[in-house]
């Protein structure tokens, strides 16, 4: 939990997962890791509605269902349910625009600064709390 907001990490890259989980552990942030697109999509859709929106660190390159497809599906089925941050090897303008227009809170191109990401997580958490209050 990030001060009450569930945190989900979805990436099939083992090194990236190890780095993120290490960073989250160091910041005492609980999280649920997923390594496949279909598993994380099912888990997110199964989350109860009306609670603090979950913060999702979503790698685009996932087996099963890719990150963009997950983003689009959640945009249709649970448009206000999640604060999704897309992680991608692609920094192209079109890819970033696609993520953001599909409802992502941010698009981070790899390699990203993990300390900055942790600082942003705090900020996004407060946004999630405000969403819940609203």
């Amino acid at each position, binding site marked *: 939990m990030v001060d009450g907001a569930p945190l989900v990490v979805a990436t099939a890259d083992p090194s990236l997962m190890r780095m993120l989980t290490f960073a989250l552990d160091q910041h005492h942030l609980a999280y649920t890791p997923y390594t496949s697109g279909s598993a994380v999509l099912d888990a997110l859709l199964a989350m109860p509605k009306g609670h603090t929106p979950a913060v999702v660190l979503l790698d685009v390159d996932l087996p099963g269902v890719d990150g963009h497809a997950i983003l689009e599906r959640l945009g249709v089925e649970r448009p206000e349910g999640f604060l999704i941050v897309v992680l991608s090897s692609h920094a192209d303008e079109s890819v970033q625009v696609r993520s953001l227009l599909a409802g992502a809170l941010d698009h981070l191109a790899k390699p990203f*600064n993990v300390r900055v990401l942790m600082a942003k997580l705090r900020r996004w958490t407060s946004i999630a709390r405000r969403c819940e209050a609203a």
Partner: protein
Amino acid sequence: MLSLDALAVALATEGALIACALGGLVALRVLLVARTRRVEAAVAELEPMLHRWLVEDTPPDPIVRQLRGLPTYVAFRSVARLATPYLTFERQQRLAPLLRRETWVREVLDGADSLLWWRRFDAARLLSIVGGGDDAPAIASLLADTSPAVRLVAIDAAARLGGALVERELATLPARQDAVQQYQFAALSRHPAAVVAALEPRLTPLETPQRLTTWIDAAAALAHPTVLWRVRDLALHPDASVRLHVARALRRQPEPETVPVLLRLLQDDDWRVRAQAARALGALRATSAVSPLATAVRDRAWWVRYRSALALAQIGGDARLTLLAVAHGEDPLARDMAALVAGLSSAAVVEMSEV
């Protein structure tokens, strides 16, 4: 009898030699396995050290020490594997001065002069992580390498240094294949200030259309206002291919002055220019272009009708209502196109506009 004794001695000697050889092989195998395990364990320890440095901002010295204990090639592979996906440029800059003092780094960099292309490749790869100003001659030599793989990696190293090497690489862009051009420019764009300085004087009508279109594409990829202003000034170029690239590039320039230029290009004699102008107007969400775009949906060229309809859908609001009105209009070609695009989801409109 003597010969039997000699045979027995020979057999015994042979047996002993075979036993020694087998024993040696087994011992060698055990040593190799043990060494591999030690190296693997050391490599496995490297990643958490790197994470600690990245997350907690601890001094990077343990990483450097750990790499020092590895065989040269393993140390190099570990750095190459971890640096590109996980280290930002700023972090690479912090690690580079420490690594440059290491023996294994010097050994790999000495490969820049090797007759073996893969050693030159490794040297270029490492220079893209630890290269500094003193390495400019070596990088310049690798940029002119006979191996395309070495040249590609050397571009990263050149981009790291900027300056004259960027200028030199930029000059070679028009001669490259499209895919190489894109890779090359993506690498160079990590130093936008150097690229802008080198690109700006090239965006002139005095250049040949073939070279000019390459510079315009580079300016569009960079999306820096200074170079895009120069691109906009080329909208009246007599060569249609130049105007086509200008129209395509201007979708990256969200300024009020850009819209009248694109509206002029929407009237161009060449349908390819008109199509790209419509696409750019959609990307810029130019609400003042709704009426000309509605007219362009009736264009005689399919691509212009398609791009114009997509642009109206992208602009949204009243533009979508205009698109629906065209879908119920009298012109059958415009009606079909408007109906096709009006039925697309907003995500599909974004995706198709980018293609």
